[in-house]
């Protein structure tokens, strides 16, 4: 069912797992930022971050011996697909839920308030 990580791969596993979350968040952040600001070029950067995510997931999968088993290979596929579409889906949801916002007359793009 599982094949434990080899000692030599410990660092790779920790680091690539951390990078999965970091690049995943960067992708989501850039994706949303590009849409909010209407900057299509930034979308390129977002997909670059996804490329990083892809590489991290593959590195993690390889180091954690996930490809040695069908179930874990499927999980890897789901992660790659899920993280790719999640920002799109959440964005649609944001637009959808905020559509019922008649009171907010600031429908036009507003200045971004630096949140972080």
């Amino acid at each position, binding site marked *: *069912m*599982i094949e*434990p990580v080899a000692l030599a791969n410990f660092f790779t596993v920790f680091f690539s797992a951390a990078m999965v979350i970091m690049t995943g968040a960067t992708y989501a952040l850039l994706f949303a930022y590009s849409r909010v600001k209407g900057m299509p070029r930034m979308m390129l950067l977002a997909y670059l971050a996804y490329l990083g995510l892809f590489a991290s997931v593959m590195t993690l999968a390889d180091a954690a011996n996930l490809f040695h088993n069908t179930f874990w290979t499927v999980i890897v596929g789901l992660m790659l697909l899920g993280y790719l579409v999640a920002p799109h889906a959440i964005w649609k*949801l944001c*637009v*959808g*839920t905020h*559509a*019922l916002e008649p009171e907010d007359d600031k429908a036009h793009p507003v200045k971004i308030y630096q949140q972080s």
Partner: protein
Amino acid sequence: MAQEIWWASTSFWRKSAIWVTGFSFVVLIFLTFDTVKQITAGSPRVPAYSVINNRIDYVFDAKRNFQVPVIGPEEPLFGKKLTEEEAEALVSHGKLTTQAKNCMDCHTLLGNGAYYAPDLTKAWLDPSWGSKEVREQSMVEFLMDPSDKLHNSIGRRMPKLGITEEEAKATVAFLKWMSSIDTNGFPANFKPIDQADAPAPATAEPAAEVGAAPVQ
């Protein structure tokens, strides 16, 4: 509200939240029924308490790709074979002792607890007890007054917790029983104490059962 999209509406998500929670919980309940059955004492994963009448080992299983507990020939704890009821009472007394003495706020049991002292999952099989002949007695003595024993290290000493001899013996029984639980290979790469019988050639024959005279 005419332009409200169904998948972005409040009511859709209210229902979704309820259904998702309900569904997950129902799945969890079903899994729990099965898991509880599989971890009830007396099952293959969690042996009956009377397993303390036997030798317990921890051996690599090539098919499952990790170490698994193996129940060996008869080797009664403290040289006394117990019935299932007696064994349960003894293990239970030991378990109560580990709780009342707050073992888990220094040690880990099955990997859960605090990290100030070693994991106790396979303490029964630990090579530090020397040999299997002196193990039981060493464990009892250690538990009753651990403060000056060799097993302490780097300045950390287990305090004297007022454990009586009876409680110490029960705790050893609990630890022995715990080492028989199938923990999916945790801890990995553990090298158990040598429990082979005397100098006789190591053949896993039932002869060992006869040779399992009360230890010391």
